[in-house]
């Protein structure tokens, strides 16, 4: 049974249509990440699921119930906000228990849920403190605790880590994953940080302009981006794109550009390629290896190093390939210098080819 299902959801602010007939289904216990550039409607979608925004059209199901018109508190969700949204003048304990008390739960039960959440999140020593006396990471933990005590099976996170510094962000990311494994709840997580998405998600939904572009596992998204936008959005440094045409040479497909010809024997076409079609080929910087690889399927090309950027763990080379820019990620031992001429190899089977309208070919 799906835990959260969204069907034909639309939302407009006045005349601006932010979500456009959007469909999404989330399985029970799944960790879904909504990933997309700022302003694409991720928070709006999450707020619709939570019931904080009134939808313009469509339906929302949670745990099999149609909750489209339900109040947030009746939807069986807990939510964590980017700004934490802790009640500043209440102690941590009060923050956790306030909603439960208002709902009229018996004291003992409230007590039990609070101490359980505090134990899971290891915030027991903080219970008597006010939010102002907590660090960012501790505040975020309390915010998660406020969702935990509600004893619900769907958790919504709106960029919960973006207000934290890089180190804390990594730590809490791991903790969130552990929490998910322990609780087994459905989690819907909004972020614009692709590392967070790739590391946390069971499946990622890439959004753009109020539409889900691709919904797939992190590997699927990374290896088989369904369109040019997804391909360019995921990966850092970004995918290399080279414009050219498709050529059909006696049943053998080639990608052709001035001074460049790449055989596509092993490339798995998804669309209908036509000869002479204008396309872009996308090659991930980490799929290119320096020097000649004689393995089957690899093609080797001559590139000229332009700029060398050592990044610590690896080195990024900005090179020229037949007049096009090509970035290559190589290991940090590399001794390449600016101006060097190199041979670079890659397997076209791992490339992506996009038609002019952006769709994968």
């Amino acid at each position, binding site marked *: *049974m*799906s835990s959260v*299902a969204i*069907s034909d959801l639309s939302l407009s602010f006045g005349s601006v249509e932010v979500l456009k007939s959007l469909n999404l*289904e989330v399985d029970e216990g799944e960790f879904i990440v909504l990933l997309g550039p700022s302003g694409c409607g991720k928070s709006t979608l999450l707020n619709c699921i939570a019931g904080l925004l*009134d*939808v*313009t*059209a*469509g*339906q929302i*199901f949670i745990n*099999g119930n*149609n909750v*489209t*018109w339900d109040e947030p508190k009746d939807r069986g969700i807990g939510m964590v906000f980017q700004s934490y949204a802790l009640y500043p003048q209440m102690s941590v304990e009060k923050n956790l228990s306030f909603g439960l008390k208002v709902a009229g739960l018996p004291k003992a039960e409230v007590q039990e849920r609070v101490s359980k959440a505090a134990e899971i999140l290891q915030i027991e020593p903080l219970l008597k403190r006010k939010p102002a006396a907590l660090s960012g990471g501790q505040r975020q933990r309390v915010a998660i605790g406020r969702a935990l005590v509600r004893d619900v099976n769907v958790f919504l996170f709106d960029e919960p880590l973006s207000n934290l510094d890089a180190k804390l962000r990594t730590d809490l990311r791991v903790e969130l994953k552990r929490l998910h494994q322990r609780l087994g709840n459905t989690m819907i997580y909004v972020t614009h940080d692709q590392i967070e998405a790739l590391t946390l998600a069971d499946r990622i939904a890439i959004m753009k302009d109020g539409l889900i572009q691709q919904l797939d596992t992190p590997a699927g998204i990374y290896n088989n981006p369904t369109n040019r936008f997804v391909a360019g959005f995921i990966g850092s440094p970004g995918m290399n794109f080279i414009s050219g045409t498709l050529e059909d040479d006696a049943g053998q497909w080639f990608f052709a550009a001035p001074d460049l010809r790449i055989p596509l024997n092993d490339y798995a076409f998804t669309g209908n390629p036509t000869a002479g079609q204008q396309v872009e080929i996308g090659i991930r910087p980490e799929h290119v290896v320096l020097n000649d690889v004689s393995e089957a399927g690899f093609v080797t090309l001559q590139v000229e190093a332009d700029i060398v950027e050592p990044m610590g763990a690896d080195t990024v080379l900005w090179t020229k390939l037949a007049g096009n820019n090509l970035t290559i990620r190589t290991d940090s031992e590399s001794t390449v210098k600016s101006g060097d001429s190199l041979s670079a190899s890659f397997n076209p089977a791992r490339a992506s080819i996009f038609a002019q309208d952006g769709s994968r070919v």
Partner: protein
Amino acid sequence: MAEAVANKMQGPQGPKPKRIISGRNIVLYGFLIVAALYWLLPLYVMVVTSLKGLPEVRMGNIFSPPMEITFEPWVKAWDSACTGLYCEGLKVGFWNSIKILIPSTVISIIIASVNGYALSFWRFKGSEIFFTILLFGAFIPYQVMLYPLVIILRELGLFSSLGGVVLVHTIFGMPILTLLFRNYFAGVPDELFKAARVDGAGFWRIFFQIMLPMSLPIFVVAIILQVTGIWNDFLFGIIYAGTTNFPMTVQLNNIVNSTQGVKEYNVNMAATLLTGALPLIVYFVSGKLFVRGIAAGAVKG
């Protein structure tokens, strides 16, 4: 997927229907409308009373619209109402107020803008202390300073003159205006100032060529603040201006509260409206800026 499809079209869909007439809305709009009526009533009464003839005013209901509209009260209020001393109407006070308003506004804003700029970018030892004293001054009851200022103005030969009131307005406007400009300039990036310094610009050049052009909005706020504040002043006008220079508020009070003769309520209301017209126009024209201005000028009391 099958389940969702099966569920589709069942149960609630699309926006939650909203009842326009809900209990909440009745209470909410009821409260707002009653409050709005209460706040509008005096303005309405002023307008209708000022358009009625005196017999009608004495006869009738203050809320009833005039049976016969007459502008006589307005003409009289402007031209010939008596203040107890003479019968020249409010026009004298109007021009006095204008003569006080313009120099007071201009001078106080010039001084305060330069002060605010100096306090933001050219702090020197003690500048913050003077500023703190100045801010405290905004809260000090004027009564403490009234008489010493009489002495100071007398020494300067400005007592009972337009110059005297202008100086007093400049003094009392300074705390809040300085605060306004200081806070505004504090929001200007330091880098901009440093870049100008590196380019060799000095105190005045930076002020005139860089800060002034980018701070027009705050000048508008300051002008709104000063224009309404100075126009509405009564205390300083009655003490420091001298009888021949009484501003409009003082003359209005003299007209309405003069004990001689019959009370002409319609003329009084016309006079009151005439006196309130300028700040009201400023308020309606400036809208949001006015709110900003008074929020900043709140301490002026």
